[in-house]
């Protein structure tokens, strides 16, 4: 059986997809994140609200996502956060 991803793991995967693809389009990010469209929308809204990612729209109305400083900080600290949660049974 496929293991259900934890919320933090999903966030990490989405942010990593954005980091590795630099200015990724929404449709491509949806495929890369492996989420349902509904869940994808919820996660993206959360990440924008928390200032982890930003949505950029160019002159041709083309939408792309990019990482913010806070998003990069999260990816750098992800291992530490995961370590704390697992070692303290949180």
């Amino acid at each position, binding site marked *: 059986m496929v293991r259900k991803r934890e919320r933090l793991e999903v966030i990490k995967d989405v942010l990593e997809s954005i980091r590795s693809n630099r200015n990724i389009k929404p449709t491509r990010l949806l495929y890369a994140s492996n989420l349902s469209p509904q869940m994808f929308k919820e996660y993206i809204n959360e990440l924008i609200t928390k200032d982890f990612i930003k949505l950029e729209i160019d002159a041709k109305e083309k939408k792309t996502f990019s990482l913010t400083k806070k998003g990069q900080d*999260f990816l750098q600290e992800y291992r*530490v956060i995961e*370590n*704390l949660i697992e*070692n*303290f*049974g*949180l």
Partner: protein
Amino acid sequence: MFEWMVENKELLKFFYTFVIALVCAIIVVKTDRLFNLSSHKGIRYLRNAFLFYGVGFVIRSLLEIPALPFKFLNIFFEFFLIMAGFFLLYSLLWKRLETSSKNYNSSLFNPRIFLFYSMALIIALIDNLLGTYIFMFFSQIALFILASIISFKNYKNNGKKHKFLKFYFAAMLLSLGAWSLNAFAALYLWRLRFVTGVYMINTAIFLLFLYGVMKVTKK
């Protein structure tokens, strides 16, 4: 050695409180930074536990000053200590009790935590009315029995992969021991030797938590 400790009792008490308050402050700062990034509820409750322990111990140090007429502070001391225990237990339990549909913005002011506040306040008030610490001791003994069982399960399930789970379980057992010794001392003989033993165990517990936080958050 023991005579020296008796002679310097006040100095040792101050040093004990200072060490624990400092340990709590470090843990709160470290966990708060990780909570701000992750919004993880378990980290949030763990941070709250050490915040309340820290405040509790600072209030306790004020109670040691004989010139201060703030004996009512004893209620706050008990309240913060009991709440800290509740937060620590809840950091282990929240996944089993909270549904993802109910998200409270504040971990300090929400209906669930309000229940803990009420219980802590009732225990602190009863103890102060009766001039005892017994209700606090027994509430904490019950709480740490539960926390020991949960942390033992965590250790059995994931102990090989995550090494600190073993120390976490040890910290819960030590806490249970310290509260039991406290209750024994309060019921039978309130001797300095017992109290010194409790202080030493408590210091070891907080240092163990500090070691864990420093170790697992090391990059």
